[in-house]
């Protein structure tokens, strides 16, 4: 490419970037007056945090047990290293900030979460967790997708459900009320002259000099209407997301990890307005088939740092009362370690719910370490009773509609 072209391109892009930043900053001033979607007045929010790959619950909330020591010679922490929880169990040594939240009564631990007669296929198990239904994806949308479509679909806001950071879990999938999904706020834009792009939305009708709707183009025109609305949504949410990210300042120090960056973006959006009700983020690499100890400890440290900063930041901005964080994983891991010092895919595991509105403490029941289900922890709590607590207890939405009549009653978690 010639020098000339490079120069042209740079000045072109500088112009575009300046425009974007200007719009973004201008937007902040009138941020907090956005209309509130949904019925409830306090704008309640769920942050769904998936530990992708199958978190080892027994290395997260660690029971004191000789039996466990026998089958986990390499992966189990020394009892003295654990952080105190109660007489029967301790926290993973790296979860000190989450433990501090727990001590303040702001963390509910739900032990032994799983579902009856678990399917053998892990791929399927994943789907069960994401849909809250035994039939998995064949049953339709994800549970958050159903919640959003049945509760907020008339809000007119495209970004009621947002996933930040990579691939969205199927939980947020909805065929009628799709989530806004972004890798990172900075990449969430159309890279060109954004003002021209905006003219491709519904505003393009201004260019029509005469009625151009011909019958032979009926199908095309219907489709164009929908796509133009999506373009307008994209523009609106792009400005909001990028603006929030670019203008957010916080004295709270976040660790330099992906999950922390995603949660920081969530904090920025929470502080900006009340439009988004569900934020989905994911913390990956929990699939610890080999040499689990070091890897899992690292994950725990990352999770602890990210969540600790996030919760502190929300308290600072006054968003902590309307926000709960649900930490889940698509399955637990086997009780006994395998030949590679790791743990293969298992079944039940703990879920955590964090926030000021949460009824802190232990919920559910600890699964037996001796009476196993084919080498796995047998579940003691149907995970859907936690979903039901979110849907019914937190959002006051219709549990039957979201989780189906087969869902068990809600746990009292909020």
């Amino acid at each position: 490419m010639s020098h000339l072209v490079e120069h042209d391109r740079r000045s072109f892009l500088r112009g575009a970037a300046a425009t974007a930043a200007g719009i973004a900053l201008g937007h902040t001033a009138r941020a907090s007056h956005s209309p509130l979607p949904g019925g409830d007045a306090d704008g309640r929010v769920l942050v769904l945090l998936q530990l992708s790959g199958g978190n080892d619950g027994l290395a997260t909330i660690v029971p004191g047990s000789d039996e466990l020591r026998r089958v986990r010679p390499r992966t189990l922490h020394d009892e003295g290293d654990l952080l105190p929880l109660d007489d029967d169990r301790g926290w993973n040594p790296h979860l000190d900030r989450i433990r501090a939240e727990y001590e303040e009564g702001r963390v509910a631990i739900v032990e032994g979460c799983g579902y009856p007669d678990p399917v053998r296929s892990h791929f399927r198990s994943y789907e069960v967790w994401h849909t809250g239904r035994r039939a998995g994806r064949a049953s339709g949308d994800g549970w958050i997708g159903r919640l959003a479509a049945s509760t907020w679909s008339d809000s007119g806001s495209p970004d009621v459900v947002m996933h930040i950071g990579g691939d969205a879990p199927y939980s947020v999938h909805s065929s009628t009320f799709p989530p806004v999904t972004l890798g990172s706020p900075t990449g969430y834009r159309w890279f060109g002259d954004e003002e021209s792009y905006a003219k491709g939305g519904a505003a393009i009708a201004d260019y029509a000099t005469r009625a151009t709707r011909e019958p032979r183009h009926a199908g095309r025109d219907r489709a164009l209407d929908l796509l133009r609305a999506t373009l307008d949504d994209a523009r609106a949410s792009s400005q909001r997301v990028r603006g929030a990210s670019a203008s957010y300042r916080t004295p709270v120090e976040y660790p330099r990890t992906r999950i922390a960056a995603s949660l920081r973006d969530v904090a920025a959006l929470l502080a900006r307005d009340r439009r988004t009700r569900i934020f989905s983020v994911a913390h990956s690499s929990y699939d610890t088939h080999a040499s689990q100890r070091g890897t899992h400890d690292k994950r725990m440290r990352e999770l602890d740092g990210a969540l600790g900063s996030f919760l502190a930041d929300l308290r600072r901005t006054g968003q902590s009362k309307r926000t709960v964080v649900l930490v889940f994983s698509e399955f637990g891991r086997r009780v006994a370690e395998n030949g590679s010092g790791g743990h293969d895919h298992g079944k039940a595991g703990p879920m955590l719910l964090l926030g000021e509105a949460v009824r802190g403490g232990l919920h559910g029941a600890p699964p037996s370490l001796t009476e196993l289900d084919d080498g796995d922890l047998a579940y003691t709590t149907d995970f859907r009773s936690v979903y039901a607590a979110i849907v019914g207890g937190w959002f006051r939405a219709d549990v039957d509609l979201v989780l189906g009549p087969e869902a068990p009653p809600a746990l009292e978690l909020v």
Partner: protein
Amino acid sequence: MTTNVLLTTLLAAATVLPVQVERIPAATVELDWDRRAVEHLWNRAGFGVAADEIDAWVAAGPEALVDHLFAVRRGDRTPLSRRFESTLNEFDAEVGSPASRKERFETRRRRRLIENDLLQDLRSAWMESILEGDDPLRDRMTLFWHGVFTTSFTSVRRPDALARQYETLRGGALGSYAVLLRAMLRDTALLEYLDNDENRRGSPNENLAREVMELFALGEGHYSEADVREAARALTGATRGDDGAYQFDEGQHDDGVKTILGVTGTHGPNDLATILLDRPECASFLARSLLEYLEGVPASPARVDQYAELLRETDYDVGRFLRTLFLDPGFYRAEVVGARVAGPIDFVAGAERRLGLGVPPDFAADAAAALGQDLFRPPSVKGWDEGFAWISTSTLMLRGNVIGAMLDLIDVETVRGDMRGAVRSELGLGGASRDDMREMSREQFRRDALSRLAKSLRESDYEPSAYLGTIVRGAGARTDEEAVRVLADALLAIEPPEETIAMLIVRLAELRDAFGVTEEQLAQNRRRTENALLRLGHLLLSLPEAQLH
């Protein structure tokens, strides 16, 4: 130039289809064989057509184009499955049986890398075929079948078995569905994907039985739970042998009497297929799936009936089905033409087919994956949801950005520079430290799909091999309006509405001003003209109009 052809003449000339001729009232329905129809057929039966080829197909007529689409092309390459198999066998022989745990772990890690590479090869080989466009109808229908008889590398980490499945689907893509269904019940990748390797006498696994009925043959509501249980028994023993080939394990097969959909006998897998194929719902189910995939709108009961009957009469001849559909005026109705949301592969491959940019197949496959259609990794056993399910705020903008990368307007520096801009605006307000922000920016960069795509394009030394100025000059465009019309025709798969043309004319004038190009200079070969046109092209291919085909 428009040639109107009577359907009856068409059918008589195209192939022997007396049944169809009787059913459709003669001389009342005509096929308007114009540029719009030609492009429509290319969009749906293939992956689009270059604008300068359309007139020749208008002149040649519909039968000629349909014949062209069906023309047999034979690749003489070694099947990928065989190559993959020997690669994996060689690796296994070379490492032997690892002595220690550590070695075993290391061997597994290395094998996984090879498996990933082979899958990458498979994906690229298919994408290359799609981009080259030598066998468009077969590629289109293989993609359809890949979405029906789904198998994902995520759970079946056997590139050789996936390649074999792909070859089976490709070979049978235009043949009889009955043959394909029977072949799939012997396909090791599918059997493993749907857990039939765990379906044994006395402890049945119903996964395959259920999906065969629900997703492959009948559709929900046309079978009972008892039918699923009995069908699962019929499928016991169908599995993968130690050599990787299909094996029917008599010892694991339940040879007792079963009743499936009212038919009683000591059924095995092939009997199950026969029972399903004999059901009238099976033809209706397939007819509906094909119609809705190719037309992009819900199929009316009358249309489903008409085409289901054709399938029944021809022992599920999909080729005959397609030939009839492509010559059916109903396929060209207003509701259908230009109204289907192009899937990610349609979108990326379509842009390449129309523009001839020369994008690397790896990039095209990665871009389609980032947009939601990752070959050999369908999201679930149901395959991909078509239509508006492809479109989110994110994917809509990313589609435009992918085009920007293909036109070389967006590269890694664009994304980084934009991030730096965002970070600077924060630093200006005095907040976190410079280091923090740099780190944050790096994290955001890592999370961003466009950055990854732009990086892979840079690493492949790609440069677009088409000039928009050539297209504009070649058509003799001398005004903004003429240039816009020529580019819209060349770049879009559909006819755009007039308001879109009007908007683009205004934009082109702005761009000419920005780059210091006069309207007269549109006809001249200048770098600045190309720069203005590239930005117009980028906008054009990012618009809602470019998402349809």
